[in-house]
């Protein structure tokens, strides 16, 4: 538990002092919104509003690839990765520390991106802000869960920026299916579909448990 808090505090402190991840992810997410605007000419129509939840999650996934990659690449300096591997106790706590720090940074970026989407696609998010935050958290848990594991895997390879998306994206299918369904239902004023929530919960639980256990083998420097 101490290792978890130490890693969490360290990462958040580094982020607070340099702000490099937050700024980069935020700029990237906003640029993605602009690109969507060019990709879908014709302004805001009912059809683009229908697709907005999916596009929002695309923006979230791409922004998270930045943040996840940086989670372990910043440990390459001064051989800090070996330091993490030598931490006492179960290495899964290092994984959790990295996961939560990434989630905190991601949450900030996701909130601002959602606001940008609300402006560009003329969505009203405030009435559903609380359940939407819950859905986004569930989706981000799954995304960052295996994302953090694969970031540690990718950092041991030669082309880590390329490897992380290649490893991560195929396994995101259940997370995206559930998250986009739930977000669509929320934004069109319907009740949250139980199936989507069930899928997100099952996926998150599976991914988090497997990543916690597998992390021991991955960080074996």
């Amino acid at each position, binding site marked *: 538990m101490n290792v978890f808090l130490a890693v969490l505090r360290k990462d958040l402190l580094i982020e607070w002092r340099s702000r490099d991840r937050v700024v980069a992810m935020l700029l990237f997410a906003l640029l993605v919104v602009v690109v969507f605007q060019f990709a879908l000419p014709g302004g805001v129509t009912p059809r683009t509003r229908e697709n907005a939840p999916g596009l929002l999650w695309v923006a979230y996934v791409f922004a998270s690839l930045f943040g996840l990659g940086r989670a372990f690449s910043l440990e390459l300096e001064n051989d800090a990765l070996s330091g993490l591997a030598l931490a006492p106790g179960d290495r899964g706590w290092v994984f959790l520390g990295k996961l939560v720090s990434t989630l905190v940074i991601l949450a900030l970026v996701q909130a601002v991106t959602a606001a940008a989407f609300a402006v560009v696609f003329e969505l009203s998010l405030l009435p559903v802000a609380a359940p939407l935050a819950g859905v986004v958290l569930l989706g981000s848990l799954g995304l960052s869960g295996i994302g953090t594991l*694969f970031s540690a895997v990718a950092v*041991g*390879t030669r082309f880590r920026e390329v*490897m992380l998306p*290649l490893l991560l994206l195929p396994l995101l*299918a*259940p997370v995206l299916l559930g998250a986009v369904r739930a977000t669509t239902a929320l934004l069109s004023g319907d009740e949250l579909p139980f*199936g989507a929530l069930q899928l997100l919960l099952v996926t998150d639980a599976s991914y988090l448990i497997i990543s916690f256990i*597998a992390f021991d*083998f991955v960080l074996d420097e």
Partner: protein
Amino acid sequence: MIRASGLVLGALAAFTAYLVAMAPVDSVQGVIQKILYVHVPAAFSAYAGFLTTGVCGALYLWKNDERYDRTAIAAAEVGVLFCTLNIISGPIWAKATWGHWWVWDPRLTVTLLLWFIYLAYLLLRSFTEGSERTARLAAVYGLLGVLAIPLNYFAIELFGGAAMHPDNLERDSLGAGMRAPFAFSVLTGLAAFWHLLMLRQDLEARRLTEALPEADWAAEAGS
């Protein structure tokens, strides 16, 4: 072992080819239905390959024996080969019968995702340096890939497109006279998988042992 499996494969393949050529032509679909004799065995072999990779990865992490890793890489490569064959033969049949090259139904989507996952597995292996680290990281990823199969089926059954892919293995779903060629083609497919697996595993073992003299030379040059 390799020669034996090669001979068995050769014999089975020849006999199966004869059976498939003699098999009755489907009255509704026409001769395109015979793709079944390639498509289904390829699917079985692909899934066999991926399961083998996952299981051998787990065994490697547990026992730390590099022979499991050799089998894992061999099974992944052969699995990807058969999966590619599966994904190419499927749409050819689909365009002729359903009128679409591709639909996002559960089985197609999961197979495509698996194809991507194991291609990423192969890339991960070629981009990682150090054989122990490669084996370890690949084992973790291969295992996750296998565990993702039921999860993805669950996900896509809930929300994917309506199931269009025919359910197989129903009783009498094959027409009369098709059971024998189908059974033999599945056998041949699995025999091909086995033979290629043995070949690739042998190649991997040779690669490791034959690299040793070079390593000596490099060490001498360095000192």
